């Protein structure tokens, strides 16, 4: 029998949810354990769990305290969470077009200045990355990506902006993101994509899944307008390739 993995921390998120935390930092192994626990709890549900939400380094487990208490739930989760990881399955890859800078990426110049380089260098570094969808959260389709170039790691803004545009491509801390809907954000805005990772009456409604790979490529603002119209009409406009 394979050795078990170190136990995660069980952090109370109020009286009806527990954060099962595998790591404090972004860590691919931790993310794989999150996704594996999520799959295991879907395959063999524990009575009282109402919903699970995978994130970078923890699985948020919502439950009904009328059915199961915090301690009893923890005792059931721990043996599953410490099982050895199943083998990795092949991922799909999305190529996502981005119009960088100008009105679409209002922080590009400031980010370049702060990091002591040029906007072009930021674009090359950002679009040159090989990313993984670590989680989807905050607002529908907002895909959080791991794999951001260390040079681009930058503290979030002190005060979040109350509204940032749909399709925003941004960076925050050690993370990169694809934002689908207009929303508040404390991240730095580098550009915009016409791709909708969430579109209500499209099949599929949600484009990305945790575990998908992502690369970016630069498009000019005219191409953005054309693709944006196509996307509005229901086209996916992101290219899917085998990873």
């Amino acid at each position: 029998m394979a050795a078990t993995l170190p136990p995660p921390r069980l952090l109370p998120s109020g009286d009806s949810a527990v954060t099962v935390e595998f790591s404090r930092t972004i860590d691919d192994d931790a993310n794989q354990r999150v996704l594996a626990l999520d799959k295991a709890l879907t395959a063999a549900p524990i009575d009282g769990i109402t919903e699970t939400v995978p994130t970078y380094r923890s699985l948020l487990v919502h439950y009904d305290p009328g059915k199961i208490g915090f301690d009893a739930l923890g005792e059931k989760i721990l043996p599953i969470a410490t099982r050895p990881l199943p083998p990795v399955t092949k991922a799909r890859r999305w190529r996502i077009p981005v119009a960088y800078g100008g009105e679409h990426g209002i922080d590009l110049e400031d980010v370049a200045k702060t990091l002591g380089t040029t906007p072009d260098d930021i674009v090359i570094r950002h679009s040159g990355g090989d990313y993984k969808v670590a989680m989807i959260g905050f607002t529908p389709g907002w895909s959080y990506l791991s794999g951001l170039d260390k040079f681009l790691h930058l503290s979030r803004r002190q005060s979040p902006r109350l509204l940032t545009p749909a399709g925003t491509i941004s960076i925050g801390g050690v993370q990169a993101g694809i934002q689908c809907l207009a929303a508040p954000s404390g991240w730095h805005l580098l550009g915009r994509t016409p791709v909708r990772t969430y579109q209500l009456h499209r099949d599929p409604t949600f484009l990305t899944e945790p575990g998908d790979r992502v690369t970016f490529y630069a498009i000019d603002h005219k191409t953005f307008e054309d693709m944006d119209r196509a996307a509005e009409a229901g086209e996916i406009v992101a290219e899917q390739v085998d990873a």
Partner: protein
Amino acid sequence: MSRLVVASIGPASSVQDGGRYGAQRYGLTVSGAMDRLSLAAANTLVGNEPFAAAVEIGPFGASFTARDGAVRLAISGAPRNADVAGSPVAMDSSVTLKDGQTLTLGFARGGAFTYLAIEGAIKGEKVFGSLAVNARAGLGSPYPRPLQAGDEFTVDAASGAEELRIELPKPATGPIRVLLGPQDDEFDDANKALFLDSEWKISATSDRMGYRLEGPAIKHLHGHNIVSDGTVNGSIQVPGNGAPIALMMDRGTSGGYPKIATVITADIGRLAQTSAGTAFRFKAVSMAEAQDEARKFAQAIRSLPDRLRSSDIVALNIEALSDANVAGYAVSAVDAGTWQVTAEP
């Protein structure tokens, strides 16, 4: 079928129900009523399921007119003056509008949200099991946005059932109870104490997404960037400026600021009904107490039908009396229509 027409309505008013659960893993916000107990009370009064879709009315006034037949309604939540054709309607009671009659609601006299339930409930196309409005995601039915004057609902014709009132459990008073965590270890003891011992006020810039708290700045132990992780209703996150934000029903499903504490389920509605500018405190409780309170809260909602009473006895305007008493006046409750207010010495 009858129609209920929104004759006038203020901002922050929308159709809400128990919320949209099951797709938080895709970032789909739960939405739903800010004060679940009041939603359930209003629905119970007209015989609906407790978390059926109803109108959540923001702090300003509103009026609704019945067309093509009678409509039976009920109101619960933030107290306000209400009348139909000049006759007062008590909070926590049902009322039937005859064809052409209008229910007029004044400003909230404390609190923020009042729930207007309609017999037979609001009808629409559910997405992920809910009609709740989530304007940012373009979700909600029949209108995927806050309500406007002229909007209308197609509703069941009034059943003619006797009018009811509901005797709600005495609301908890005192501090808003929280469980520390999940990231209370991102704060030192002095800052945790500062959070728990200080007086807070809700900022006027608050909304269904989050209540911004005004008070002392809370400092982080290791800075304000954590790796984004999941949020729940009532998560209290502390961004870089040190001003905590209590995440409410339209919250993002994940967030990247450390969460010092989480409001317990039983007190989320109380926090939601705390008016901007009103001073309040937090109090940390144990997991055992929080889960016990959550179970009691669920039981209180289940037992609402047992609290229904016939409304054909003298309807006192309890809220108005209570408001006046709180304000330092003694009030005679004998004559509800012409009650006297006497200043205490």
